[in-house]
């Protein structure tokens, strides 16, 4: 049976309800929450700060470290607390996505730590994490070329959909499910993250990227609004 209607009734190019809030963790130098429907991520930034041990310091530029993890009860089947291969890889691709916008040259010899925690998961967690992290970095006053906005595009059977949910990820009929996580720089539209799992034709992927960029613009508007809101309060 062809995928003609989404499980949650959304239009194919419609993301779930989104929410962004800046300043959610008092101790952090910058922090934010980003939500796609039931998927909730929080991010906290500490730094730039002294980098220990000294031999890890880079005299030419600052170091950005990302640490993505999920609460054990963010998913149906309990996730054992602590890092896994999955979380290590996501931490790294997130780090790369954010490194492309952060002006690390301004922070020689120091480290900027980004901690991302998924409070509740229903797919697209890394995208929510990147959106929250970009806000937290800006909130921490870190020098950035621009913001970065991330969204997942799915190919479910032969349909391209925006902001994939768990049920869609598990879709097996027809051409099955392809999940594509992507992140775009807010101004240039340059690609800062691309990860794909499934089966998709190159021409379809081009279309998916265009669809992703279109959605990323809406996310960017939301991010901008959340930052300005905290700006007005401070």
């Amino acid at each position, binding site marked *: 049976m062809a995928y003609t209607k989404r499980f949650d009734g959304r239009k194919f190019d419609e993301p779930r309800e989104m929410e962004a809030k800046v300043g959610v*963790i008092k101790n952090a130098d910058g922090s934010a929450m980003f939500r796609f429907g039931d998927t909730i991520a929080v991010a*906290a930034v500490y730094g730039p700060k002294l980098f220990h041990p000294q031999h890890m310091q880079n005299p030419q530029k600052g170091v950005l470290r990302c*640490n993505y993890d999920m*609460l054990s*009860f963010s998913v149906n089947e*309990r996730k054992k*607390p602590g890092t896994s291969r999955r979380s290590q890889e996501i931490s790294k691709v997130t780090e790369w996505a954010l490194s492309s916008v952060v002006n690390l040259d301004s922070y020689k010899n120091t480290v900027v730590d980004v901690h991302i925690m998924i409070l*509740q998961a229903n797919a697209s967690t890394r995208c929510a994490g990147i959106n929250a992290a970009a806000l937290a970095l800006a909130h921490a006053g870190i020098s950035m070329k621009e913001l970065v906005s991330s969204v997942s595009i799915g190919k479910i059977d032969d349909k391209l959909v925006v902001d994939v949910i768990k049920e869609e990820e598990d879709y097996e009929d027809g051409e099955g499910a392809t999940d594509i996580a992507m992140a775009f720089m807010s101004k240039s539209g340059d690609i800062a993250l691309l990860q794909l799992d499934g089966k998709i034709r190159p021409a379809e992927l081009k279309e998916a990227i265009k669809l992703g960029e279109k959605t990323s613009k809406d996310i960017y508007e939301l991010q901008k609004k959340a930052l300005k809101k905290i700006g007005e309060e401070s």
Partner: protein
Amino acid sequence: MDLPEITRKRISQFLAEGKRLDGRKPLDYRKIEIETGISKNAEGSARVKLGDTEVLVGVKIDVATPYTDHEGEGTLITTTELLPMSSPRFEPGPPGIESVETARIIDRGIRESGFIDFEKLCIKKGEKVYSIMLDIYSINYDGNLIDAGNIAAIAALKTAKLPKYNEETGKVEYGVLTNKPVPLTDKLPINITFHKIGEKILVDPSAEEEESSEARVSFALTRGEKKGEMLINAAQKGEGKIFTQEEMFKILDIVEEKYIEIEEKLKDVKN
């Protein structure tokens, strides 16, 4: 660690007069905020704020084989993660002694109190029982994670529901909750942690006060069988300095009063 020596001196001088920098009296808790049902994928969950300290607790329930020495009883596993996002004090990596100790103090109080009716968590003696996993996370640290985590643990357990157990597969069907709560009694396992700064005893320290603390002792209490009677289920003294017997006795004189105060806050938490 980060507290300037002169500020530490002020904290202790002011306490000697029976006052705290944030305006509280030594035996006052900060404002306690309890919110339950914060996570859709947990069988039970709670967010507790104790001033600027914030913790999240989730209950996940699975089925498991019982321990051979407790064949007819369900099991409980408690963990605490002091997240680096919650304070510059906490480093990424495997749990350090601070988080291990916090989890164990909370675990002992719950286990010994009889709050969870472990026998009712038995599905088939010697073969299948429900296993409760209680995970405590710090989101923002401003002192007293033990008591905050403990309050959140009680709230999460009180609002938890058993997942659907499929007898044929012998597995839990996640995402499908029954309307059956976790079998609990009215014996709330409330933990009260006392700190000593100079010659003064206080509860619910802020991060600054916790850094000035010379010694701490946690008591987990519950209500006994007789009306008005309370029982201590667990105690733990921490940090390198001592309490005099006199100080310890004073703490034991007030601990029941503090129990009632926290118990009151948890009254409205219902499934």
